């Protein structure tokens, strides 16, 4: 369940002993502090994920699965304007999947993938393994490397994708091997949490992180007002929570 900005503001006001006061206002104080906290949380999670201390699945509020029709080069492009989300991280790419409806219309593949909001994933089919730019070239001579189709047996193919690459088009593309050109692919990804605008908005982090977010917001407020004791207390609290988390 996302965290309401109103909840963060209420807790901050309580910690600052400023309930009912006009000392702190949303636009001037809380909005910049909460926005900064939002970005800081993304950086923190990036660090935690890279150290494999926490799995991306813990951010259920931001985890989504959407379908695309792969482009004619067997890749997919994440166009945030079309999807409505900013891409934070790709968790998995599925090919050869089952969908609802089971046989959606698939027009001829074009040079960009097509976002298919009209199709829902039913069965993920086969998962693609993330590979590197160096390793992917091995697929043509080593049948045991992911992405290779040398055996020609569907059951033995381990599909692979490379992280986003610009192939001359303006939109970066995730190429998938062996080719699934024109087929439906499902992508499980983390959407970047959007910064709030109004006090009625929410932060898309789990409710259990409310304490940490409140502390970090207080921390930013303390910078602003040069409040050394508050800075020190919130710093200590954040550190404790970060250590527990990592």
């Amino acid at each position: 369940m996302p965290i309401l900005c109103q909840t963060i503001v209420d807790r901050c006001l309580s910690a600052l002993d400023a309930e009912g006061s006009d000392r702190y206002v949303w636009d001037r104080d809380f909005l910049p502090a909460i926005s900064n906290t939002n970005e800081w949380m993304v950086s923190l999670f990036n660090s935690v994920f890279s150290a494999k201390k926490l799995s991306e699945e813990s951010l259920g509020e931001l985890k989504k699965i959407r379908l695309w029709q792969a482009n004619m080069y067997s890749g997919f492009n994440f166009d945030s304007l079309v999807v409505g989300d900013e891409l934070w991280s790709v968790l998995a790419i599925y090919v050869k999947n089952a969908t609802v409806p089971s046989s959606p219309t698939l027009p001829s593949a074009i040079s960009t993938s097509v976002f298919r909001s009209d199709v829902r994933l039913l069965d993920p089919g086969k998962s693609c393994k993330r590979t590197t730019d160096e390793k992917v070239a091995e697929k043509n001579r080593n049948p045991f490397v992911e992405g290779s189709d040398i055996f020609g047996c569907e059951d033995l193919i381990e599909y692979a994708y490379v992280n986003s690459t610009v192939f001359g088009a303006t939109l970066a593309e995730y190429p998938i091997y062996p080719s699934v050109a024109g087929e439906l692919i499902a992508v499980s990804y983390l959407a970047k949490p959007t910064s709030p605008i109004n006090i009625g908005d929410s932060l898309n982090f789990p409710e259990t992180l409310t304490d940490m977010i409140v502390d970090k917001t207080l921390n930013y407020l303390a910078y602003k007002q040069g409040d050394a004791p508050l800075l020190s207390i919130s710093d200590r609290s954040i550190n404790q929570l970060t250590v527990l988390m990592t």
Partner: protein
Amino acid sequence: MAYTTIRILAGDLHKSLKQTFDDADISFSQVVHWAQFFVNKYVQRSIQSIDSGLYLSIFPDVPVQEFVANVQPNEVKGRKYILLPDSIHDLDDDGGIKYISYSDKEGACAPGFTGKRFTRTTPTKARRLYMNVYEVPSPQNPYFYRVRNNTYLLGIEEINVKYVEVGLYTTFDPFSACDLDAELWMDEAQIAYVFKSVVDIGRFIMLIPSDTLNEGSNTENAAETPSQRLVGLNAEANQEQPQSE
């Protein structure tokens, strides 16, 4: 009767190996490959020690062909031959070929293997056959010899045999068959040996020094970085393992 399939065997092995070492870069096709050569090893051992029809494959209509030109190597103009229809176990005296026969009576009711049987010979031994009236290759007493994938037929040069029946001890090859759900034609009691042998290979691969693998431990802090040699989890078990199959 349901036999274990390579999907069941390799699936179990792949999951078991990943269970111990989830970051290990072991693909499913690798496990299938490892299982393949141990299946062949234990099947070959069974063929050599027991007489069982479990391992025999019959190919009833293998066409007899004749080379029209010499091609280096192994193709000799004018010689009749058959192409082995499948890969076979390489046993002593070409034992992977259980029999080759042809029916000398067109439309006969008896099965093909009751017809004329080819006796095994070799290019070097065959010379002597022509010196003995009782052994000379003939339609009544035909011979075969194997050169790689070609099996040459002696004694039927003057008659028109279109097809022969062949009984072979074929090898197991899931990659060319491309069917992971096909039965694994081996004694079910031997599956455990295949399993253990593949796990042994997996254990060897997991002995790769752990600092080249992402095992999730935090080594950023210098105090936590191991100062002593890292020993694989299975090191002790490997030392104690007897050299028996």
